[in-house]
């Protein structure tokens, strides 16, 4: 089924318009309240079957999607790689086609290869939601970050947001970059040059080589998780060195000219990219991000579940 507002799939923020992004955020806003109810459930997606197809381990994203699906009354099936036919050599498309033959409506896919979500979306009729593909995009994380920023900073036009850390390997960074630019925010990046894309200077972002400069400039920091295996890859000398130069610490924030909204997509390496007293501090909105994640995913699923566009137009009247 095709959504009149989002099309068939949600694969990345790169292909969405500012208007579509705003529509998702505006739809998520009233959905927050459902999670506060005693009965945390509405019947909007009753009878729909959604498969969560996870080729990479994930705890919070999978759980967040599952909560979103259940709170909209969809039926859900979780397929994890270990123990599935995938480990017996079945291809991604075979797996999905077999699931489709059992009459499903949507697939939420997490995969280690960039472009896997698009590859699948082009080959099956069900709606596909990208829950993270390689180093490409993680659109629902981008959207929940935008919603959280909007909650705390208001309209994002002209707001200064700095993405800190391993931008090169981060699908979260990429989705954030696209989303922030489309909503008119000014974007900064801060991290070791070895962990920034080569063409970063041409992306219309401000590059900070020192975290102190980023803190002077920014109204919000989105601090990415440092993948510990990057150290073995030779991208950074040591974790302690990384923390010394790029760690967001209380002392550094105390010298900021304003209160800075602190975000982190999780899971955190406390004491590496972020210190505990910052993560748990008064300006941290890290748990708000988690709460907003459920609302944003509900909005995406709800909008994708739509029927025929021409009738939806008529329904607005």
């Amino acid at each position, binding site marked *: 089924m095709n*959504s*009149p*507002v989002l099309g068939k799939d949600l694969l990345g923020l790169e292909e969405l318009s500012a208007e579509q992004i705003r*529509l998702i955020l*505006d*739809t998520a*806003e*009233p*959905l927050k*309240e*459902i999670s506060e*109810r*005693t*009965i945390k*459930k*509405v*019947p*909007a*997606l009753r*009878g729909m079957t959604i498969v969560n197809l996870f080729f990479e381990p994930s705890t919070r994203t999978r759980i967040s999607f599952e909560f979103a699906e259940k709170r*909209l009354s969809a039926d859900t099936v979780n397929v994890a790689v270990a123990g599935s036919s995938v480990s017996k050599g079945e291809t991604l498309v075979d797996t999905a086609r077999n699931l489709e033959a059992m009459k499903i409506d949507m697939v939420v896919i997490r995969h280690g290869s960039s472009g896997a979500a698009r590859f699948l979306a082009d080959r099956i009729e069900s709606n596909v939601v990208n829950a993270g593909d390689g180093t490409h995009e993680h659109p629902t994380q981008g959207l929940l970050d935008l919603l959280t920023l909007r909650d705390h900073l208001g309209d994002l036009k002209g707001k200064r947001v700095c993405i800190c850390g391993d931008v090169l390997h981060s699908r979260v960074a990429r989705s954030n970059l696209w989303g922030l630019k489309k909503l008119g925010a000014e974007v900064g990046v801060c991290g070791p040059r070895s962990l920034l894309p080569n063409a970063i200077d041409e992306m219309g972002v401000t590059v900070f080589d020192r975290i102190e400069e980023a803190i002077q400039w920014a109204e919000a920091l989105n601090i990415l998780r440092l993948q510990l295996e990057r150290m073995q890859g030779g991208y950074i000398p040591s974790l302690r060195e990384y923390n010394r130069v790029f760690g967001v610490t209380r002392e550094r924030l105390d010298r900021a000219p304003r209160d800075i909204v602190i975000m982190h997509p999780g899971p955190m390496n406390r004491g590496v990219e972020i210190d505990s007293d910052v993560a748990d501090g008064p300006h941290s909105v890290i748990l708000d991000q988690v709460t907003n994640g459920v609302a944003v995913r509900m909005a995406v699923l*709800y*909008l994708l*579940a*739509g*029927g*025929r*566009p021409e*009738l*939806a137009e*008529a*329904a*607005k009247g």
Partner: protein
Amino acid sequence: MSQGSQSGKPTVVLDARSMGRTLRRMADEVVELFSGTDDLILVGIQRRGVQLAERIAAFIDEREGGSVARGALDITLYRDDLQTIGPRPVVGKTSLPLSLDGRNVVIVDDVLYTGRTVRAAMDELADFGRPARIALAVLVDRGGRELPIHADVVGKVVQAASHLRVDVQISDLDGDEGVIIVPRDGEG
């Protein structure tokens, strides 16, 4: 009346002053229905029902003293037609006390037509508890029910054929205030 609407011009059913009088009478009838305001809560359906509930509640406060509870209900996610007509992108806010157990709930809406909105509203209310009683107050009952639902308090009954639209206008949202009938395709 119906001649005017057939020629494309809006027919005025209630002007601003008569709408005010009608809402005042509805407020009295709500209090009468429950023999007072104990455990009463007025729940408006987004969007115009919320404004109307506020008006009626203000009249009740004026007559009875005190402050009667108000709530807002968005029934978008409880509609039975998502699969056929697609999602309505704009989902409004629902704000209700966490529990409606034992309360006397009055659902307030602008126009009662097929009854499907009210059906959805009752489904949603049930997820907030078990009210002692649910009543329905509407400014306009235009007939055309598709479900066995009736209103307990009605502002005005009009007979409008299915090609006509009954619009309730509220000054806060629409500038004008009143109830008009316009052709469905025309700009209301």
